[in-house]
């Protein structure tokens, strides 16, 4: 695992990736700090983090797009499979390297509140609390990016899907207001999700029975619940969209609440997507 970690870090620092990622993050947080802390003279650094979280939409996919896709394209994944290193360790090594690249600009950012506090009253607890949440949320997005990269061997496609997914997540709370809150609308949405899920399962496992099975069972359950108790579906879809939003949970921290459930949510997202990435790598061995 250490070998993979070191190797990945060398790749990031030999290419522009790590520098571009760091520079973008610093520039964005820098602009935020200019606008909020310097120009508007607000002493809350956490607002800056809330503002600059949008930069993840672009920089996370750019950072993670090559992590597995490129290995496949260059056929170097064969080497990883033949080495006496388990796929879990490969994914963990790669993920830790990404976190390391991500931590470096954060260390620079961590100095800002201290610097600002020299010139006025800065409530450091919320600043650093939000910074921790900012780090863990970014880490969760990176885990999502790793998984997306493991689905394709085309870096560009991985980046594109990554941007779409994170952008959707970013706006999901605002979008939730526009989606249908009626029971029928939610049921229809679940139908579409069932079809998509079936398609994804089919794509991943090439197992028709499993894909159709999952799809049809989900649809049947939806129909059953719909006829038994229609009210269960009311407002469900917007609710789910709000709950799934990672960015929405960061706002809680920005507003001064250190929300442990959010931290646990972020950590579960990390574990879930890393697990999926390992499965995605393993699956290639079986196909």
């Amino acid at each position, binding site marked *: 695992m*250490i*070998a*993979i970690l*070191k*190797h990945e870090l*060398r*790749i990031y620092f*030999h*290419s522009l990736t790590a520098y571009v990622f760091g520079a973008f993050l610093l520039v964005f947080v820098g602009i935020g700090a200019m606008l909020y802390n310097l120009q508007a003279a607000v002493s809350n650094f956490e607002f800056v983090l809330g503002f600059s979280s949008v930069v993840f939409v672009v920089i996370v996919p750019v950072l993670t797009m090559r992590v597995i896709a490129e290995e496949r394209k*260059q*056929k*170097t*994944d*064969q*080497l990883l*499979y*033949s*080495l*006496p*290193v*388990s796929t879990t360790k490969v994914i963990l090594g790669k993920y830790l390297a990404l976190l390391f690249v991500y931590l470096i600009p954060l260390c620079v950012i961590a100095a800002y509140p201290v610097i600002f506090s020299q010139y006025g009253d800065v409530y450091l607890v919320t600043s650093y609390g939000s910074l921790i949440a900012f780090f863990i949320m970014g880490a969760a997005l990176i885990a999502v990016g790793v998984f997306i990269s493991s689905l394709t061997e085309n870096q560009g496609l991985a980046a594109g899907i990554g941007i779409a997914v994170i952008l959707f997540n970013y706006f999901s709370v605002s979008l939730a207001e526009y989606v249908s809150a009626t029971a029928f609308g939610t049921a229809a949405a679940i139908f579409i999700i069932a079809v998509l899920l079936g398609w994804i399962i089919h794509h991943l496992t*090439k197992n028709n029975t499993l894909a159709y099975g999952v799809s049809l069972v989900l649809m049947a359950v939806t129909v059953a619940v719909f006829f038994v108790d229609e009210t269960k579906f009311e407002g469900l879809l917007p609710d789910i969209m709000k709950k799934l939003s990672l960015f929405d949970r960061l706002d809680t921290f920005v507003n001064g609440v250190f929300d442990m459930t959010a931290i646990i949510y972020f950590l579960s997202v990390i574990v879930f997507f890393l697990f999926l990435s390992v499965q995605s790598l393993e699956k290639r*061995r*079986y*196909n």
Partner: protein
Amino acid sequence: MISVKHLSKYYGEHLAVDDISFDITEGHVYGFLGPNGAGKSTTMNIITGCLSATDGKVLIDGHDIFDEPDAAKKLIGYLPEHPPLYMNESPLEYLKFVGEAKGLRGAELSAQVSEVIEKTGISNVKNRRISTLSKGYKQRVGIAQALLGNPKVIILDEPTVGLDPIQIIEIRDLITELGKTHTVIFSSHILSEVQAICDQIVMIAKGKLVAFGEPEELQKQLLTPNEIILTTDAADIEIKKILDNVEHIAEIDVEPSESEFTVAHIKSDHDDIYDLSSSVFRAFAVSDRIIYEMSLKKGNLEDVFIELSENADAEPAKSDEIQEKDVTVESEVDKA
């Protein structure tokens, strides 16, 4: 060393490897031979743990590649069909990474890296970017990677494909050199190559094991009916009359000819072709007919290869017979 038991692999509906079993013993150079798409790469990928098997077992020195992958993989060095190289690194950086991933550290790592660089002859390019190297050198870096960690078995998948003739010779020499210290398995669809380097041949066609043994052994046993080609002044009917009393003649074919010479193909069902040729010679001498030219048509591995590849469907029982036998089996293919 390596024991493959009833290995099968399906890609969806397609059966790529069909119940293959064989044993590989230490200290030989094995050649995996088969036409493209025969299942060579699939078999190698399964042996090295890069691919799962649908059915069957692979034991490396007693360690199951699926149950104890770490222990088993440490015993194998593998060069896949496409050398898995990171193009932006230098061979030195790349080999250090692979060595580390194989569990080497510190002084041992540096020592082994310089040793494999020496062995594969890449010391003059070790600091250049891999992407700028020629294909032959890339292949060498790939082989160097396989040698790290001092594995007992080196598995090379088509190491000479796409190289120019000089590079091919160099890689072949390198394999021969490696064969002195390691067990080497390499695959190829080029017969002469396997014939030149290997002391054991594993022939695969359409996912089945069709032959296993020493090249000479295979060649000797797999000969198609032996044939004598004869140029004489006797005519068609006369030849048949002369050879009437000669034993072991299966068939006589006479080429239609306008000239005074007749060319006859005498096919034999006898093992010792010289027995037959001397009888033929005597028979002609007794009849006072002249043999202008007499040559033996020996089957070579090329013919055997083509025949076996074509017959892979027809003789499923053959590979079973081989499986029952111990280690360096003599080929049973001639029975078929």
